[in-house]
């Protein structure tokens, strides 16, 4: 019995998974002003300020105005940050207040718990992203060169950040640690991913460094869906983020299966 790992549970409890997913969605919907409306407003302020200051000074893709270039980046940034915030804040709150015990006492397997937390995060990320798009699209001329890529990159990006939120939520033992994860890892990787600029405008060393940042591929691939133009090919971006998703998912599943910092 001392084996560290939860054995493979037969099947997949659809009802259990759906309930946890429903609970996680209700959790952010009930505080929608904070979880959806506020980040939409923040993104709109970013757009207004940056586009006002830089519209006539920065040239990125040929024939694409800076505001139009910025908008998909802001949408993707909102998707990513909110997907991370959802799973990480839910888990740390549940751990600190102790109510995670109800999930841990239940017959849910680690796969069902993982799937529910990540999917709820994706839904919040996509809801915020859609909100940002709806309120900012009026300010830019946008095309939809490859809509399927937009959807694929938004879904995969939110899945990656939702999964990273699961990892952070399991690892952290206090709110301070989640804030550190968000401010020292997620925020720099997001801001240095080319949301506000094309990495081609950077000096060589920084361009190379940007290519080591998986967030760059999420934003670049997402932007390709709008303009049909990107810093790297969308297929490359897709391959990088698919590998990233596989890696972070494996880590999160392992942590859940072994009960790391959950089942002592």
């Amino acid at each position, binding site marked *: *019995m*001392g*084996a*560290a790992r*939860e*054995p493979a*549970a*037969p099947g997949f*409890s659809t*009802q*259990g998974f*759906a*309930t*946890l997913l*429903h*609970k996680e969605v*209700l*959790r952010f919907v*009930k*505080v929608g002003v904070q979880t959806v409306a506020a980040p939409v407003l923040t993104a709109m302020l970013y757009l207004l300020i940056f586009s006002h200051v830089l519209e006539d000074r920065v040239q990125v893709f040929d024939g694409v105005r800076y505001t139009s270039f910025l908008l998909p980046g802001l949408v993707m940034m909102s998707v990513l940050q909110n997907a991370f915030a959802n799973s990480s804040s839910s888990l740390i709150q*549940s751990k600190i*207040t*102790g*109510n995670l*015990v*109800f*999930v*841990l*006492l*239940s*017959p*849910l*397997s680690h796969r069902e718990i993982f799937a529910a937390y990540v999917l709820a995060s994706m839904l919040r990320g996509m809801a915020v992203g859609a909100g940002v798009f709806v309120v900012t699209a009026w300010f830019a001329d946008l095309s939809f060169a490859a809509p399927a890529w937009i959807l694929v990159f938004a879904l995969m990006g939110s899945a990656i950040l939702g999964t990273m939120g699961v990892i952070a939520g399991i690892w952290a033992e206090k709110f301070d640690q989640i804030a550190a994860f968000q401010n020292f890892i997620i925020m720099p990787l997001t801001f240095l991913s080319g949301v506000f600029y094309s990495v081609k405008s950077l000096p060589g060393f920084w361009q190379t460094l940007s290519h080591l940042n998986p967030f760059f591929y999420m934003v670049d691939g997402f932007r390709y869906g709008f303009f049909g133009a990107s810093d790297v090919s969308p297929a490359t971006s897709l391959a990088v983020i698919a590998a990233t998703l596989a890696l972070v998912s494996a880590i999160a599943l392992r942590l859940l299966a072994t*009960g790391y910092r959950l*089942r*002592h």
Partner: protein
Amino acid sequence: MNAAIDVRCVAKRYGSFEALRGVSLSIEQGEFFGLLGPNGAGKTTLISIVAGLTRASSGDVTVMGHDVVSEFRAARRALGVVPQELVFDPFFTVRETLRITSGYYGIRRNDDWIDEILANLDLASKAESNMRALSGGMKRRVLVAQALVHRPPVIVLDEPTAGVDVELRQGLWHFIRRLNREGHTIVLTTHYLEEAQELCDRIAMLKQGTVVALDRTRSLLHRFAGGRLQLRLVGAPLPRALEPLRVEDPVAKDAGRDVAADGERVSLRVDDYAGIEGMLAAVREAGCRIEEMELLHTDLEDVFVQVMKETR
């Protein structure tokens, strides 16, 4: 028939600290079982291992014949746990909380049973209230309701009446007793030993991660049969022949009293009621006058204190 809970040689180590040292016990279906011990004895650790919240370092645990690790789904479906901490999810109402808990166990459309539990726990009027708006006692009732929502055959209550008022305590025990009569196995940890004595068929006492007593409640009380004879003696000290029977009793302490004027209060162990006459004769022969006399029957608290002392 499978045991409701079977614990075999379970040890739990946290670094060099041994929280449980090879605990074995079996709880039969339909029993009302008490798990007692001082703080830090390992009660909650043992319950956490049974519930899958903690992983044992070694040993095996089954619930209704299902291993809590390899068959965790079946084991957890068979178990309802009322945690010791007063935990709740502040986002939801009482009814939402119970529906969510039902869903975790794969149960949909459980409102009939939820309504029955709410009525039995006197929570019906609070069904649509947010958890944050409830008093501590009400939150405790919701914890009990959550443990029952999937109709588990085995119910574990970890200190369910800590900080709870008398009315709720009585209502809770009335309901839990009914569930026990209907065939549910009940496992209880509590610091209120009179509750355990009144409710439990069988009791295990844990100390420093080891089972130091495991018997039927009646047998435990018989083991310390008789009780205590409390006397207030005037005129002469307790005869030397009776000194070995003297037991420590906080009520019998003479601290701060004028022994010469009020007499000496002594408490004597009575192993056999037939021996009382001899004890009183010895006192009289020694020239003592008995000013007060009271015969106290052994209760679980005496047994608990004695067992803990014997296993120091």
